[in-house]
């Protein structure tokens, strides 16, 4: 019965192919359909990816906090897999935000890094994710790890509005909702929707993988116990 539960359906490869096609389509839109920006030129195309990863980077911590809250209230360990998966995908997006932002800044502002409000807030968010994973690696007990990380994710998510306020009150030069050509706006929207779907897919896949790992460990322990009893 347990082994039956481990099967996640035959539609998995189809999902992978579908998302690979979707990402290829978005890549085509970004590189071929969207016009080059007048002043920035080709490097402006980074923005289509940067906006989507930045949004999901922040959203990942909120999802991890929501899963943490559900874990603490319902006492269901399964929520920890969702929380961990959300934090991992969120951290990946947060890292991509810093890299793509830095690449863009090098062309636009002639520097890889500056203490600009949005860059600062993105870096603080990244360090909160790093603290979350550091905490995870410091605890061996699964239940304690889940509970303590849920608390840190909630506190981290509660601090996001404060971080945003603290950094926005500096005078920044990061562009906010600039004027855009309708085609560019359409490509940005398509890129945001498809990348968000892709990250949601990654989140579900990682969560299923964590659940399977948890079940395999439980089965292995049961098997070892039964072998010990027989001997």
């Amino acid at each position: 019965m347990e082994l039956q539960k481990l099967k996640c359906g035959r539609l998995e490869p189809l999902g992978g192919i579908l998302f690979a096609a979707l990402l290829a389509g978005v890549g085509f839109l970004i590189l071929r359909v969207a016009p080059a920006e007048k002043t920035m030129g080709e490097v402006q195309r980074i923005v289509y990816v940067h906006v989507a990863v930045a949004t999901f980077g922040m959203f990942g911590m909120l999802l991890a906090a929501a899963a943490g809250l559900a874990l603490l209230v319902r006492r269901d360990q399964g929520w920890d897999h969702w929380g961990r998966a959300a934090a991992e995908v969120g951290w990946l997006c947060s890292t991509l935000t810093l890299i793509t932002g830095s690449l863009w800044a090098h062309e636009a502002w002639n520097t890889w890094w500056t203490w600009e409000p949005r860059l600062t807030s993105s870096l603080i968010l990244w360090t909160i994710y790093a603290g979350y994973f550091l905490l995870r690696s410091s605890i061996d007990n699964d239940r304690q790890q889940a509970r303590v990380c849920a608390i840190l994710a909630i506190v981290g998510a509660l601090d996001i509005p404060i971080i945003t306020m603290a950094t926005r009150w500096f005078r920044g030069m990061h562009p906010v909702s600039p004027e855009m050509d309708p085609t560019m706006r359409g490509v940005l929207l398509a890129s945001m929707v498809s990348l968000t779907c892709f990250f949601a897919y990654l989140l579900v896949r990682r969560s299923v993988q964590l659940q399977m790992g948890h079940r395999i460990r439980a089965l292995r322990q049961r098997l070892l116990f039964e072998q010990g009893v027989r001997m």
Partner: protein
Amino acid sequence: MNAVYFHLGQWWFLVRKDLQREYRSRAAWPSMALLGLLMLMAIEMQLDLPAALSRQVAGGMLWLAIFFGGAVPIERSFSSEQADGCWDALRMYPVEGATLYLAKFAFNFISLAILSCVLLPMYVVLTDAPLLKQWPATSLLAMLTCASLAAAGTLVGAIANSLRSRGNLVVLLLLPLALPVLLGASDATASLLRGDTGDMFGRWLQLLAAFSLINLTAGVLLFDFVLER
């Protein structure tokens, strides 16, 4: 009403216990003050900027020194309970998690306030910054910053206390969460040094108050979960 007095009585008992323990052992406060002073001196020595420029950047250095010095009593307030099974005995008393959190918060807040009282005059001597002339605004800023750091620090200290490598974890986990406080406090100090106690200074104070309130509420609601085993 009786329940409120009962919890207040428990709270005061726990705060007094921590203060008495610190008075007798003198384990955290001297190390805290020395670390803060050394950090402040080391930073000022290295910078050695002209007075005008120093006033712009040194505000951040002051609060950074207070943060690192303050991490000592925050870590100590929980780790000292581990000796002779004090923490287990404390958890067996009929004290609610929220009361315990607020008592530890009060001790950490008092520790950070003492550290500020030591480092602020030292900072004024080293940088010649006219902060003490505006002592009401400076005191309010220091109190709110200490409350913000203590609110987040108490929760993180309790989390780190239950783990194996707690010594390093307090600073590593607290610094990302406390960065907005340090940013706010250093910018508010820069505003004070410019003689601007108006709109911008008020905004930073609001941010610090909001941070304290959010983290205090989170601590009160989540501390029971931290105490679980």
